[in-house]
């Protein structure tokens, strides 16, 4: 989170608690919208190869899941009800990110240099002097700045943190990535949660670091943008490196060709309904919906659901990789997970 006075012009300010709730729902959807693209890239990397790249993409994807939880915790803390399983929750890929300036689209694609370029755009740090347009935010950081500003202003006169405490996801539920879950019950914890989302994504105070070591005493890690940049540049950062200077550490080997050649932005309608490929795509989407339903329950009063949903997360992975092994055209491209909404029953 940038330091100094808020940079929000009057027109872009969030004025009511209801609007703040809508923004936080959008935050959840925004954090989620990056997960299918990251998972496609991750699962397209063949097992055992490209370890550093796959660790980087995996760690970022896991932290996006953490951000979803943190945003849901803030929304629950102000009495909101996160909605995770509605028909429009998953964007239709390729898509502009919610509330973005529509300068680029994000798709479901295999791991490649072009994909990593897109990831860099997603995680790009805010330019200090570029105030957001009304309702259009140049970066994710600016979007969160507006939420932070609203939390501070709206809680000044009355207690907006009226949510039930037992709806919060608690720290022991999260593992496998940097940072940690914070239960949110007041302005301080809400700001800390938002700070973690932005810090992990863009870095803290225009450094390459993600700030987790300040809150959690962890070993120093780099923000998402800089982790992706390591792949892009084929070189690791060192602790002395700066955003401008780029990475100067040891080389990071990337085997760009050692991936499943997934056809971009797969859709169920690519295949005849009822064909084996259609069935496999459908089954994948059913599984993904089952996961979203689990998360919906976890964020709406059954936090323990998060733990049992791990089994479904593995299922998502297995089915996605299975699709990526199925050839679909003469050029040697393969099927892939389409991440489409399917209703509970056929």
């Amino acid at each position, binding site marked *: 989170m940038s330091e100094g006075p808020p940079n929000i012009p009057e027109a872009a300010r969030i004025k009511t608690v209801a609007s703040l709730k809508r923004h936080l729902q959008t935050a959840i959807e925004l954090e989620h919208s990056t997960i299918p693209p990251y998972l496609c890239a991750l699962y397209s990397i063949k097992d055992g190869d490209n370890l550093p790249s796959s660790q980087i993409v*995996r760690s970022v994807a896991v932290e996006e899941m953490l951000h979803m939880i943190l945003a849901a915790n803030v929304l629950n803390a102000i009495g909101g009800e996160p909605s995770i399983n509605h028909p429009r929750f998953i964007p239709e890929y390729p898509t502009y990110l919610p509330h973005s300036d529509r300068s680029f689209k994000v798709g479901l694609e295999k791991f490649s240099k072009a994909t990593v370029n897109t990831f860099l755009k997603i995680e790009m740090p805010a330019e200090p002097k570029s105030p957001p347009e009304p309702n259009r935010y140049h970066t994710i950081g600016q979007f969160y700045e507006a939420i932070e500003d609203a939390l501070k202003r709206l809680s000044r006169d009355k207690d907006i943190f009226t949510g039930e405490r037992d709806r919060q996801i608690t720290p*022991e539920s999260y593992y*496998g990535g940097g940072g940690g879950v914070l239960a949110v019950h007041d302005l301080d914890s809400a700001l800390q949660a938002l700070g973690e989302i932005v810090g992990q994504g863009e870095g803290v105070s225009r450094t390459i670091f993600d700030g987790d070591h300040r809150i959690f005493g962890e070993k120093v890690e780099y923000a998402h943008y800089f982790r992706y940049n390591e792949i892009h540049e084929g070189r690791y950062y060192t602790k002395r490196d700066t955003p401008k200077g780029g990475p100067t550490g040891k080389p990071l080997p990337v085997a760009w060709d050692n991936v499943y050649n997934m056809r971009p932005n797969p859709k169920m309608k690519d295949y005849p309904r009822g064909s084996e490929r259609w069935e496999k795509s459908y089954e994948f989407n059913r599984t993904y919906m089952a996961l979203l339903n689990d998360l919906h329950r976890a964020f709406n009063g059954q936090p323990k659901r998060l733990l049992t949903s791990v089994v479904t997360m593995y299922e998502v992975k297995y089915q996605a990789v299975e699709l990526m092994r199925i050839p679909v055209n003469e050029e040697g491209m393969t099927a892939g997970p389409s991440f489409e909404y399917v209703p509970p029953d056929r």
Partner: protein
Amino acid sequence: MTEKSYDVVIVGAGIAGAIVAKTLTQAGYSVLLLEAGLQAGMAFEDPKAYENYQSYLNNYYNALAKVPNAPYPNLQDAPSPNVLDLSPIQGTTPDTTGYFVQKGPLPFASDYARTPGGTTLHWLGTCLRMLPNDFRLKTVYGHGVDWPISYEELKPYYEMAEREIGVSANVEEQVYPNTGEGFFGEDYVFPMHKIPQSYLDQKFTEGVQGMKVGVGGDDIELYVTSTPQGRNSIPNHRYKLTGPVWDPYTNKLVLERSEQASYEPVGSIWDPYTGQRCEGNASCVPICPVQAKYNALKTIKRARRENLDIVTQAVASKIEVDPTTGRVKAISYKKYHDPGSPEHTTETARGTVFAIAAHSVENAKMLLASGVANSSNQVGRNLMDHMVFLTWGLMPERVYPYRGPGSTSNLPVFRDGDFRKRHAAFIMPIDNWGFGWPTGAPYSSLSAAVNQMNLFGKQLRKHIDETVSRQLLLHFECEQLPQSENRVTIDPQYTDPLGNFRPVIQYNVSDYTRAAMAVAKNISNQIFARIGIQDQTQYNPTDSDYLTYDGVGYTFWGAGHLVGTHRMGLTRHDSVVNSQQRTWDHENLFLVGCGNMPTIGTSNPTLTMAALSFWAAENILRDLK
């Protein structure tokens, strides 16, 4: 390397050596760690650590028989025993098929791994403390020997071991017979919550609910409890211990309590975010693919590296003693470059204190080869293991084995009781791995259905679904008493390519333990009848460890719990080390590991060994001060 003299020279990079190395380096002392296994296995950073571990995993995937040592390199220059080498011993001719020279009459059924991290790479991870009466078996039941230390004395070190390994368990569920008050300290909790018990466990538990079994005229009520395990689970936020740290003012290792402390599960050595929770991969033995299960490499990684030199591919072969002072002055080791070639150089490691932690059999071998520490004539004797006695059958409904860790629950009723005057104690783990251990299922289930029942297509699938998913394996780990004729010896006839001795093993099972197998089979029959389990158990005289008791035949398997080859005791006449884990004969020579345990009880011995390793490290620290 030969020039420098270290504060401490440690032989063996398994859990015992790792704990001593970590504790001493963190206290500021210089340590040399010698390891017989390959350099590649000693990598702690990615990508090398990951790549090496992937090579273990690939070995495992490709192995036809998924035995404990399948993933790990078997080195000609530092061979490991392998359970695949077992067969019944014919007459008086020793079986020399494998690394062990088996003189029998029964072949010794357990193995260990000579590789960085040692046998913790393929252990199951069960972390049960021993019971108070296990430490005074002779006094209470008139069998075996007493320990020179009590449960109460060892208790703080158990807590250190549980933190080091990272044990997941719910303390309130750990109810064992005859523990008395305060078995766990007041307010004690384990670092992490219990690993979820399997569905199979739940169905079995429902089946034996309220059941009493008739044993020796008594009716004994069964109960099932969750098993503490060295694999990662959800951290318990009530766990507030850190350390242990060496307190030079009280001369003690202590765990510190801090309200700010929280336990962070220790992930894999190549990536801290891999393996932070058990993923239920179900291949714990022989290899956890994500290192959610503890292994000793995690401890070595936490040693203070600037105080630690590690030399791998270094097989310690001789302990050299100064004849005038009786103190150990050096250890000579054979350094090889190619594990398949006998070429090597002989090097010398010098230090102030020496700790031998190369595994009970290897420790005994080295002491015998060097002619040291054996004024009691106990070195190599009292070799013990748990007799793994198995019964198996089909549950009346599907219980879905082959999921989750090997065993998540146990029946502890027969771990202690007056019956120990008559026969061995045993613990009854419920296994989650179907008939895998005794029959090689599920692979054998499939080949039997195809080859013997001529099934194919839908019928085959239906048959597999209906039978494999109902497989239940019940497991009895029977205590073995110390017997001086169960022993490891050396013989110049039998050496390995480096010229080091191969272990020659004489081994048998006494009636005290055989009687327990008969009792166990009887209990199993009662349980099977109660639940309606179709018994499929078969013991054949051709099994490598087939024996009889009262005219009835039984088969046992090895548990991999090799204990007792250089036991501790109260006097120098009947033991090799004293209660400090120091050899009676050589002031600066410590032995560390399961070999020091005078009896085995009914606990998998690793946790106790880890506790004793902290205990040994503390005594070494007092010496160095």
